[in-house]
Each structure stands twice: as structure tokens, then as C-alpha cells.
């Protein structure tokens, strides 16, 4: 029996940086969560995930906050700080789009393992910014997992014409694998609106 109603969401506003991502933005307050999820000794394939948040005019958003949540390379979710320190892997990262040229976000992590049979590997994403009254959830799938993606129940629940908005595109660079993943808040000349889930 529900006794209380959910507290309404409000926008994160333009000035979250020194509260939620102070180290990234150069404030004298230590971030609890950073864009670096994987330390050098973390097991698995080390990857970078980078992209932009684009508004309905196709312009990059310079004050968005992206949070990602993922299991380790074996598909195991991190359940304690001790486990995180032992594995050199945080499982959760946070990056604002206000510090890198071009308003990119960029995470250094490991490619996640699948969380269960029949699931493709994916990363949970929370997107929030000034002008967004309620944060949105999406997922990052991987372009080099075509066979697993084709079997994934959630990806298959997405209309075929919109699935590509959830798939990060792999590039092999001299610095290692980089996945490109832009988030489109709305349909625009720059691309189709990213699929957001009622998670």
C-alpha cells in the first residue's frame, strides 16, 4: 500500500559542476565519481567511450552530466568499495560535457561482460542537464557485438529504425579501442532522437 508519493524531479540546472563533478571541473572538492572507471590493472579490454549530447537544433550541449553504470569484464556488478578497489574498477562513472573541446564526454573503462544469458553487453546511462526537468535513461550497446545484439530482448523491443541510436560505434585507434556514442535529445539534422527508456 503506497503511503507517500515520489518527490518531484527538478532540473539539475547549469551549476552542478562544483557539487557533482568538482575534480573534473577544477574545484577544490574531491569528486566521488569520475570519468575514469578502470585503473590500469582492471581485468578486461580497456576502452574509451566518447560522444556529445546534441539538442533539438543539432548543437552540442555544454552543460550536460552523463553517468554510466556497468558490470566488469566478466559481467559482474560491483557491490562494494572493497571489491571496486581490489578489481581496480569503479562500475560507475560521471562526466560533464563542459571541460573537453567540442563539449565531449569521455569515459575510460573496460568493455563490460554480458549480465546474463541471452543479453548483449551494455552500459546503463543517465543523462541530465539544464533544461531537462526529469533525467533520462538510455543504454550503450557495442557495434562489434552484432550477433549478441540481435538476440537481446531489450534491443529487440526497440523499433528497428531507432536501434542504431543505442549502439556505440567502435574505432580502433593507436591509443586503443574508442567507441563513439552521441546522445540526441531530439530528432534534428544531426541525427535521430536517442531511444530513452522508462527505466
Amino acid at each position, binding site marked *: 500500500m503506497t*503511503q507517500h508519493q515520489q518527490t518531484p*524531479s527538478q532540473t539539475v540546472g547549469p551549476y552542478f559542476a562544483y557539487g557533482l563533478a568538482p575534480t573534473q571541473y577544477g574545484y577544490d572538492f574531491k569528486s566521488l565519481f569520475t570519468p575514469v572507471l578502470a585503473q590500469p590493472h582492471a581485468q578486461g579490454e580497456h576502452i574509451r567511450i566518447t560522444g556529445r549530447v546534441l539538442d533539438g537544433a543539432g548543437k552540442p550541449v555544454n552543460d550536460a552530466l552523463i553517468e554510466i553504470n556497468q558490470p566488469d569484464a566478466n559481467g559482474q556488478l560491483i557491490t562494494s568499495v572493497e571489491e571496486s578497489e581490489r578489481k581496480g574498477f569503479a562500475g560507475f562513472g560521471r562526466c560533464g560535457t563542459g571541460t573537453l573541446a567540442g563539449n565531449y564526454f569521455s569515459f575510460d573503462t573496460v568493455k563490460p561482460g554480458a549480465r546474463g544469458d541471452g543479453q548483449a553487453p551494455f552500459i546503463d546511462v543517465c543523462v*541530465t542537464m539544464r533544461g*531537462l526537468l526529469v533525467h533520462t535513461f538510455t543504454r550503450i550497446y557495442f557495434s562489434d557485438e552484432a550477433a549478441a545484439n540481435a538476440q537481446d530482448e531489450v534491443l529487440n523491443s526497440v523499433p528497428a529504425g531507432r536501434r542504431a541510436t543505442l549502439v556505440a560505434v567502435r574505432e580502433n585507434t593507436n591509443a586503443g579501442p574508442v567507441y563513439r556514442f552521441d546522445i540526441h535529445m531530439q530528432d534534428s539534422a544531426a541525427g535521430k532522437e536517442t531511444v*530513452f527508456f522508462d527505466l
Partner: protein
Amino acid sequence: MTADTVQTLSPRDWACHPAHIDPGYKSTGLRGPKHALLPMKHALAERNAPVYSAVQLGEFDNDMTKNAVMNGEPLGERIIVTGRVMDEDGRPVKNTLVEVWQANAAGRYVHKVDQHDAPLDPNFLGAGRCLTDNEGRYTFKSIKPGAYPWGNHPNAWRPNHIHFSLFGDYFASRLITQMYFPGDPLLPYDPMYMGAPEHLRETMVSKFSLDVTQPDYALGYVFDIVLRGAKATRFE
């Protein structure tokens, strides 16, 4: 929980939250999604939360009157803000991270982008965080934030507020909200406050409490927060 039920997270109740696009709040026009959100099953097995522990927090992380002091006390009216984080059934959300940020007493944010012509306070950052206790209770000490102008419409001013960010027990129970102060004359003019469903707006307004108020020190305000919680759902 029996064999034919599964632990799920109660859904986001859209009757409790603002719409993604609100004509009164201009920036939502190009930033709020226009397609309907796609439904997803809410099995809890894959719904972890970020990990953190008390040892990662600094001694004064929950005391904004002390955590950025350079050469003296921050200016303004000292306040104590406390409350309970609970789920919809009133169960406490324990050991959960509460992150807050706010303007200083003059209505100026430390953020480099804030160009409002009001003074910064060298002794005030305005960022804090703490974990809830076993009753779901959190407490911050701070300075009452000032109102400030913004560009949404002519003569637009934000009411006094503190930003709150929480996860709760699950990634999906995430909530970002704002706490307001009782009796603020700016509330009915604020598109963000007014963008929330009318019947729940007052739940975002803290209540003055003489019990929380500390004699000769600071005024007390109470702000309770309700997150989505776990529930047993019949498996079909």
C-alpha cells in the same frame, strides 16, 4: 517473496514529475525528448547502485559553513537542513548518498559560468554530501541561499533553493530535485517549481522547525524525500 513473485522497482510515477517539455521553461524546448519513453521491465537483479562508503567523505563534507573556509566564517544566515529519505511505503533508504549544491547568501554560485553581479564568498563553496543513517536521515549545515536572476524571461528570479541529488538503493531510483523554503514569494513565478504537478509542489518546500533550530546558532528546516522502492510483483 514466493516462487511466483519477483522483486521489482516501483515505476516512475509520471503523475509526480514535470513534463519533459514545459513552455514556461524555455530551455526545455530543445532539450526534452519528444518521443515517448520505451517501457522496460523492472527486474531488480540488474538494478545496482553506485558504491561508496563513509570513508570517502571528508569530515566537513556535510557542513558547508566549514568545508571551504579560507579566512573566516561564510556570510549569511546559518541553517540546518535535515530530513528522511524513504520509499513510497515509508521504509527508510539507509546509507544512501545525498549530494547538495547551492548559491551563497548573495545568490551567487561558485560555478565559473555564473556571471550574476553578486559577490562570491571566499569562505563558501556551497557543495556538500553525506550518507543517510539507519532511519534514512540526513543532516546538512549551511548558509541560506539567496535568490538570483536568470534569463528565462524578463525579470526572472529563482526562489531560494538547494539542489539535491540521490541514487537510493538502485541506479533507476535516481532523483535530482530542488528544495525550496517556506513563504518564498518567488515560488508562484518560478517555472521550475510550477512545472511540478500542483498537488506535490509543496512537498518540495522545506518546513521550518523550531525543534531542529539550534539556540544561538542556526534556523532548522526539514525536507523529506520519497524515492521509488522495491516491491514484490507477481511473475507472469
